[in-house]
């Protein structure tokens, strides 16, 4: 186990290094960011001074080297606009995004897996038809459109939920969270629902397909031969067989939600990392963008590691040593 994690850590560092190089080169190619946020009518020596202060007059490899040595000290540079550490900015926004993404995953799994189980067990039932229709609909309607509809119907027309923004927050283990209060939950619900639609459809389809496959397996027939009630067969014998692949895919989706919940955060004015990075891209706030992308690599690596561990717990035939290769 320890060996497995150490090896994963090595892979992670390598990935981080490659990623930093790619990101750095790409951004460098975009040209000098100073011109984007400095007053264009400033005198030339002010501009030159600003470029010098940011170290942008140095050759690219020196800039990159300084950047790397900064990372080694946990310093990803300061935002060009606010002057505050980029990593700090991201971490401040993280609880909001975390809360939104986990909320969305919770809705997606709580709704998606049971419906997928039902649909796989009886494809021609009402549930089966609903799942069929829902998953078709959710791939053909864009997320932002559904988000706008949710706002129009549930916020503007009926006023059941607020149209945007984050509710009051309380401190939980040093993080500002909003799901602890009713008002906070009301603010969280619509964006989380919106964000949950894609993973929900995915969970349904995946569960349905694996259930249909599991039902043809010999061990399910054997469970029936033992006279087990259908409920137990479905909720233990089939589910246990379905879960590992479900965890794997949903883990990847969670990573995607955390990293790219940009659209939903914009529509619902949710102050998370997605909104932060959109703003940063607009003004070429290079350290924030880089810090954000590296942070994304971190999220995906961490989630992958967790998924592998969970799968090893669910399926005793998997050894972590083997999974590492």
């Amino acid at each position, binding site marked *: 186990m320890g060996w497995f994690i150490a090896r994963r850590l090595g892979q992670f560092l390598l990935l981080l290094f490659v990623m930093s190089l790619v990101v750095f080169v790409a951004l460098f190619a975009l040209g000098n960011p100073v011109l984007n946020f400095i007053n264009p009518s400033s005198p030339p020596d002010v501009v030159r001074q600003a470029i010098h202060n940011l170290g942008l007059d140095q050759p690219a490899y020196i800039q990159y080297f300084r950047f790397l040595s900064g990372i080694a000290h946990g310093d990803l540079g300061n935002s060009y606009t606010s002057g505050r550490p980029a990593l700090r900015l991201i971490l401040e926004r993280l609880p909001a995004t975390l809360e939104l993404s986990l909320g969305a995953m919770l809705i997606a799994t709580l709704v998606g897996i049971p419906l997928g189980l039902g649909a796989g067990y009886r494809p021609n039932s009402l549930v089966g038809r609903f799942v069929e229709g829902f998953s078709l609909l959710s791939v053909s309607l864009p997320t932002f459109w559904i988000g706008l509809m949710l706002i129009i119907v549930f916020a503007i027309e009926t006023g059941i939920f607020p149209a945007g923004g984050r509710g009051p927050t309380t401190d939980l283990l040093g993080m500002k969270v909003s799901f602890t209060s009713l008002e906070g939950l009301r603010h969280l619900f619509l964006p989380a629902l919106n964000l949950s639609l894609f993973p929900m459809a995915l969970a349904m389809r995946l569960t349905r397909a694996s259930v249909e496959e599991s039902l043809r397996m*010999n*061990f399910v027939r054997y469970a029936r*031969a*033992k*006279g087990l009630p259908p409920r137990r067969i479905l909720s233990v014998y089939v589910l246990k067989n379905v879960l590992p692949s479900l965890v794997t895919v949903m883990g990847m989706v969670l990573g995607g939600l955390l990293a790219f919940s940009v659209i939903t955060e914009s529509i619902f004015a949710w102050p998370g990392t997605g909104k932060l990075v959109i703003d940063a891209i607009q003004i070429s706030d290079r350290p924030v963008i880089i810090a954000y992308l590296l942070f994304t690599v971190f999220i995906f690596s961490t989630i992958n590691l967790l998924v592998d561990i969970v799968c090893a717990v669910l*399926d005793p035939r998997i050894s972590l040593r083997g999974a590492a290769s």
Partner: protein
Amino acid sequence: MTSSPPVLEVKGLRTEFHMGRSRLCAVNDVSFSIGRGEVMGLVGESGSGKSVTGYSIMGLVDPPGHIVDGTIRLHGKDLRGLPERQMNAIRGDRVSIIFQDPMTALHPTLRIGQQMIDAIRAHRSVSRSEAWRRSRDMLGRVGIPSPGERLSAYPHQLSGGMRQRVCIAIALLNDPDLIIADEPTTGLDVTIQAQILAEMQALVAARGTALIWVTHDLAVVANIADSVAVMYAGSIVERGPTDVVLRRPSSPYTVGLLNSVPSRNQGASRLSQIPGTYTPAVSEEAVGCRFAPRCPRADDACTVFPALTAAATGAPGHEVRCHHPYAAREGRLSHV
């Protein structure tokens, strides 16, 4: 040989698989009955419909398969058309089955103990610890060493022989009236086969359980079975008391089978030396005797599907499905 009413009585069973527009008849007009404590050997080549017969009795034939005709009476009660709930109460309790492939029958990621406890608690309201105790005892009885530890093992941690014994133990858990053992010893080496066979025989004899032992192996049948039914292409072509069928076979197919057994003591032998190629299940309305194309005695009469009739030996229950059965002495084989 049965004075008590039969535990299981199958009459005119017909099971078909509907695939697209074609229909495949895997079991055709199968009838037999088994009394308490009786062991019946069900013999036939691969694809002759032995497993489908077993699944039909258990009500486990899945679409595209359907039981289209016949009755399956357990203690006189017809299982066909029984509501799923009631059938579930019988499965694993009054009738249990040991699957042909024990490697895939056990759930790969559930502990052995869990799978055994489930089998008990589906039918008995006993505590988990009581179910655990019974499971452990049963594992011990089928010859698994340190059964307590095995209960917390996963199937992949056991050898093939062990898994087979686990399946046998599960079949015995609820003390059923009938066990269908579908080639439970294929894939095991000969000594373990013999060992399991002997254990199984002792266990069912002690409890008076009826046993259907499905096999390719005539030597096994000779050892264990009171009666034998020989299947060919979905139908029983000959059945009767084991010693009569094996010593004075009447059907040309049975004679062919016996002649293809290399030696009495050689253990497992695939039954493949009958001339001609075997056509397993039969597309719907094939006419005539299925064995005719390979049969040395076939003639024009064999274009009509024969009925099961009393054999010339006159032995009780000895029946044959053939227009030209061997007469009582004619078919006798010296080496059996």
